[in-house]
């Protein structure tokens, strides 16, 4: 049965995969992709909570899911992620043109 917990587990798994990728990959493009996976894991959580609680009230009778807050946030994150991906890719390409590598271990121009 597909319920809220399934979405959350999927989200957690995706986040963990993304985190692992972001921390372990040496390739800057792969790190960027991993970060995208983590962002999308968060998006899934947002949308899952939003749809699960729509039309529900808490114990004090205040409506908690009456608005499309989660969905709007998800769209917002997608937008930011797109912008971020564009900027990051531009930087990576710039770096690649300069030092012919996208290995983060070698990108140490600003390291003291």
């Amino acid at each position, binding site marked *: 049965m597909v319920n809220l917990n399934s979405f959350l587990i999927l989200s957690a798994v995706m986040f963990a995969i993304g*985190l692992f990728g*972001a*921390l372990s990959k040496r390739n800057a493009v792969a*790190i960027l992709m991993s970060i995208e996976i983590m962002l999308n894991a968060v998006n899934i959580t947002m949308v899952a909570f939003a749809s699960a609680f729509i039309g529900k009230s808490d114990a004090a009778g205040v409506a908690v899911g009456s608005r499309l807050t989660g969905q709007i946030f998800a769209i917002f994150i997608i937008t930011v992620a797109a912008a971020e991906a564009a900027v990051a890719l531009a930087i990576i390409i710039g770096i690649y043109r300069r030092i012919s590598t996208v290995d*983060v271990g070698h990108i140490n121009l600003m390291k*003291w």
Partner: protein
Amino acid sequence: MDIFSNPVQYAWIVAALPLAALVINFFGFRMLDVLTRPKEVVAQADPHAAHGEATDAHGGEQNPATIDAHDEQAHGGHDDEHGAATGFWASVVGWIAFGAMLLAFIYACLIGAQFLGNTELQSKGVTLHIYDWFNFGKLAYTIDFHVDALTVVMLVVVTAVSMLVHLYSMGYMAGDRGYSRFFIELSLFTFSMLLLVLGANFLVLFIGWELVGLSSYLLIGFFFNQAKPPEGSEVPWPPPAQLKAFVTTRLGDFGFLIGILLLWVTTGTFNFTDLNFNTKTSATGLTVVLATTAMILVFCGAVGKSAQFPLHVWLPDAMAGPTPVSALIHAATMVAAGVYLVARLFPLYATVAGPESLQVVGYVGAFTAIFAATIALTQTDIKGVLAYSTISQLGYMFAGLAVAENNTVGIFHLFTHAFFKALLFLGAGSVIHALHDNGIGAQNLRNMGGLARWLPITAFTMLMANLAISGIPPFSGFFSKDLILATAYERGYMPIYYILLFTAFLTAFYMFRLFFLAFGGRGGAIGGLWGGEYRGIGQPHESPWVMTLPLILLAIPTVVAGFLSVNNDFANFLTGGEITTPYVSPFTETLTWVSVGVAAVGILLAWAMYGLEILPAKAFTGNPIGAPIYRLLKNRYYIDELYGLIIKYVVLGLSQGFYLFDKYIIDGIVNGIGRFVRGLGFVTRRSESGFVQNYGAVLFGGALLLMIAVFFAVGVFR
């Protein structure tokens, strides 16, 4: 005017006069002298001829080896080049210094005149408040002068001797390049001693005490650029000699300072009057044991300053300075300070502290007396003999202080000794002055003999002083020495009495040995007393009037000063007429004739050995018993060598130990901490990789751990 009608109230003038001369000369005429005097001429052509005289002008045994050893390094500036005339401004400096001392002497005599017959003044004295030094809380530190009979005696002695030494120095130092510097340092020396004597509390006294040490340092090393004498020379070299004097006296000062502080901590006062007369009655924490300890510690300072065993080693070397300075040091200014200190604190020693304190003083004094006298028997340096005789006589003074019930006995010997010892040293200076132009070791008795023919005034005055120090009536030394011996006998200090009696014999012997060796000899008139065979080279000459006049002036008190003790006059003056015991003339006592007889035997023995020369010295030093004793005495009991060994092995060994402790323990701890931190950094620096991914891993790892902790806390896993 009040200054003349009531001079006691202006006693500071006595100290201010040499200080004024010092300031005027130092900032005024010394500058003019330095600017106007001709440049020093360094003879390049023949160093032997040019420096044969200059090198050892005041110092050394001159022999060809000396000259050879010298000629290279002797080229530095020689301050003591003779022959040149004294510059105009230099003589101005000399006359100002002398004039100030003459005025100071006259003023001291005025104060003395006011004290005469005024028993109130004699017993109480006057305290003059000069200056508030600083105050905090209950503590008030003041520069106060205290003038009582003891101070007056010291003022008169110091100014009189210093004044005559100033006059004498004008002849002795004539033409010396350091002429003006010499007189400035003499002024400083005299000022320091007057400050010491005038001080009403330990602070002022200690300032004077240290200033005396400084100025003696300066004056002993007056010829600081003199070339090093060759190995084995008996003549001390000024630079180490001045340091030795300074450091040795400083050793005693260490105890002195602890003693002062001990007294201050328990009584809360530095003031002599309070310490002497109020410590018993007031509720201070000064117990007998503490007082005894403090007084023995204070005596340590006196031991250093007055050259008592075991800190006597500096005084014989102090003759490296010009001879007038030796006269000043030995008679009035430096070594008298220790005796004065004990005399000043005499009530503390006698009434507050236990009897042990004065016993220490007495036995150290008596031992030093005989110890130094035995060394003096064998010395061949004319100033060396006199130096050891000074140490011996100072021992007499301390013994005299210790055995009597007041300080008058010791101070009386200080008083008479100041005159005849100054006379002896100035006479020795006159001899050196007479001989040193001849290019021989001018201080060595072996190069003298028969000098009375050429130096009649010097010889006659020296004879007076010799009779005085030997204790022959009616010369001054007889009265003071007999007083010490009689007091020791009467008050039951038999060991001290016998030691001092034997020392009296030795004293008479070595002083007349000196006299016969220098002025008499075989073939002279009166059985070798006057004139005789001259063993030196060239023609000695009598000194100019500025040098013989002080000798004559000093000969007067040397002969007559002893009569001041008749009817207890001197003791009554010091104590304000408290002496109640009836006066016994020394001439009526059998005991007196014992000590006079002992001295006469000493003189006759010296006469037989060195005047008539019927009893060769080899008779004593040639046999197997006498030879090692002679060697021991000749080498001054090897005390200097012993101290050398102590310094080399104990002091340097200890410092080596401390160095190693510092290097390996102290530095080890400090470096160990550094090394530990370095090692820690070496291990932990791996965490700072510079890779953002690592930081991120740690960040999220931390977050994970936090999450698990929260889960545990809320009971998820339960």
